[in-house]
């Protein structure tokens, strides 16, 4: 039981019978709870709604029409066209860069975490405890404190202003290793590995054919977390990239905002900023929507422990 309990919470939220309404007085409280939830949901959604509405307005509409409702003139497609012409469509380069960095960094970090998590969970080699202790402690080291020294190191190797400057540091995910280790320990029974070895499978084959399929929910979670982490990253690309063609969309849009605020009339591209921001949030919102089954259980692997 002790081993199966965390498994259920790690693979998915355990189903529980509906503890439906029992008395009339309970019904009253349920209405109150619903009103509370709806108010809360509105608070969390209204800025996103605003972004959607704002993406459909041109600059004069942004200044002149009600903030939370559409303008008479629907300008979304003009704005998208504008993103293709502004600085020769550099916005789409930024979006592509974001995808490249997030997937290269995220997939790389996930592969390293799976391997290391498995190694720590299923082998009792000398020094394991000490090494894992150091990794666990490093979760508490703020990654932004590493940005400036990383910048200086990368500039010595001539890697500043290359995609590697963002991708390589993003491969580091101590929390991913921790999650994979905790999950592997419970999800992969030693007996199964033993059986595979007795059947003559080597260590790699045992890992790929026996352990890996059992780890799928944790892999999706770690992948999601590390892709989101890299996609979100702002400090690192801000420090190590100056070439406009290499920026991820987050740094690029912030640059447009700074220019627009600085005021020069021709550089004010408010409508492109809102539309660009709206398009850039769609991929993650959609993937969270479609991967619900995984993250709702998976995000808690570490916390249950």
């Amino acid at each position, binding site marked *: 039981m*002790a081993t199966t*309990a*965390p498994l259920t*919470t790690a693979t998915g939220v355990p189903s*529980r*019978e509906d503890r439906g309404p029992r008395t009339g007085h309970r019904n009253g*409280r349920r209405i109150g*709870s619903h009103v*509370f*939830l*709806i108010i809360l*949901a509105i*608070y*969390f*959604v209204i*800025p*996103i709604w*605003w*972004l959607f509405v*704002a993406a459909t307005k041109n600059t004069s509409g942004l*200044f002149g029409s009600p*903030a939370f409702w559409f303008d008479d003139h629907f300008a979304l497609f003009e704005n998208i066209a504008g993103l293709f012409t502004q600085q020769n469509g550099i916005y789409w380069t930024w979006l592509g860069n974001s995808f490249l960095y997030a997937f290269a960094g995220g997939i790389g970090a996930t592969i*390293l975490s799976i*391997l*290391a998590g498995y*190694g720590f969970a299923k*082998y009792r080699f000398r020094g394991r405890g000490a090494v*894992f202790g150091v990794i666990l402690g*490093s979760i*508490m*080291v*703020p990654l*932004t*404190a*590493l*940005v*400036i*020294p*990383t910048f*200086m190191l990368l500039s010595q190797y001539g890697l500043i202003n290359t995609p590697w400057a963002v991708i*390589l540091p993003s*491969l*580091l995910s*101590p929390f991913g290793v921790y999650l994979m280790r905790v999950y592997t*320990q419970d999800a992969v029974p030693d007996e199964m590995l033993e059986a595979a070895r007795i059947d003559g499978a080597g260590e790699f084959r045992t890992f790929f054919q026996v352990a890996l399929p059992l780890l799928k929910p944790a892999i999706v979670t770690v992948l999601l977390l590390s892709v989101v982490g890299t996609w979100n990253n*702002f*400090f690192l690309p801000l*420090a190590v990239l100056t070439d406009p063609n290499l920026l991820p969309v*987050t740094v690029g849009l*912030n640059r447009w*905002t700074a220019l627009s*605020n600085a005021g020069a009339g021709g550089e004010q591209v408010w409508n492109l900023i*809102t539309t660009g*921001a709206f398009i850039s949030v769609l991929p993650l919102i959609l993937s969270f929507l479609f991967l619900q089954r995984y993250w*709702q*259980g998976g*995000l*808690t692997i*570490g916390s*249950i422990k």
Partner: protein
Amino acid sequence: MTTQTTAVAPPTAAVPKRRRGGSLLERRRQRWGWVFVTPFLVVFAAFLVFPLIYAFGMSLFTSTLATGTTFTGAANYVKAFTDPLFLEGLGRVAAFAVVMIPAQLIVALVAALVLDSLTTWVSKLSRLLIFAPYAIPVVIGALMWSFLYSPRFGPASTLFDLVGLQAPDFLSGDSVFASLVNIVTWQWSGYYMVVIYAALRSIDPAIYEAARIDGANGFQTATRIKIPMISSSMVMVITFALIGTLQFFTEPVVLRNIAQGAIDAAYTPNMYAYSLAFSYSQFNYASTIAFSLGILVFAGSYLFLFLTRKQSGLK
């Protein structure tokens, strides 16, 4: 209950201690572990251990145009911890931690407790909507709020006109603190809520049944049973929030675009280190600030975990 008991066990204890005679073959096989962990350890050494050592090394030197680079020992640290800009920044992130973490935690906890008591489509939809901001990059979230706060675009003046009041200036020196707290609460509460909610769902409902028979009402069940039983998740959430808050950077940098008067270049220690390095090329001093911040955050979260070790089950 079973989940809770395993929760108390540290990761290493879950591994059965099987020292099977330690045959040579077996010991050789266990060495395969290194093959699996080495790729990660290479990255770990290159992008965590080495930068930390490098930053520490840099912080021991001072570089000036007149004298070149000279070894100055702890001088940079003496300078940092008497530097009003650094100390003010530290005080500010500490104040943010005191306000922001309880704000996020209360929203997340109350929402999770309410969600746990309902199973309607409204509650399922609300859970998704409250979580939605997590899927939005922090920069974009801060950009959105900076538009909403802006007196030029924002809805505030229209909304306050309706009730005949003057809209507050969200970006003045006094209110920018609250404006930043709002952005962070909006961005992260949903994520924490999902973590807490999942922990609540893993409690055995038979316990609630027992509590009800003993005459506990909903509020008592929540405060006396549910919250104590998910304390390890709460400790994890607070630790992450603490680490995140002390390295506050992105939101104030983005908001600074429109509120330069209220947010200066040294608003938080990370912003200070960034401007020292990239506006003034003082890399030695910037390394000192970054390394000091790293140590303080590490010590702070370690202390927090140590003080709450009973709740979190970590030893």
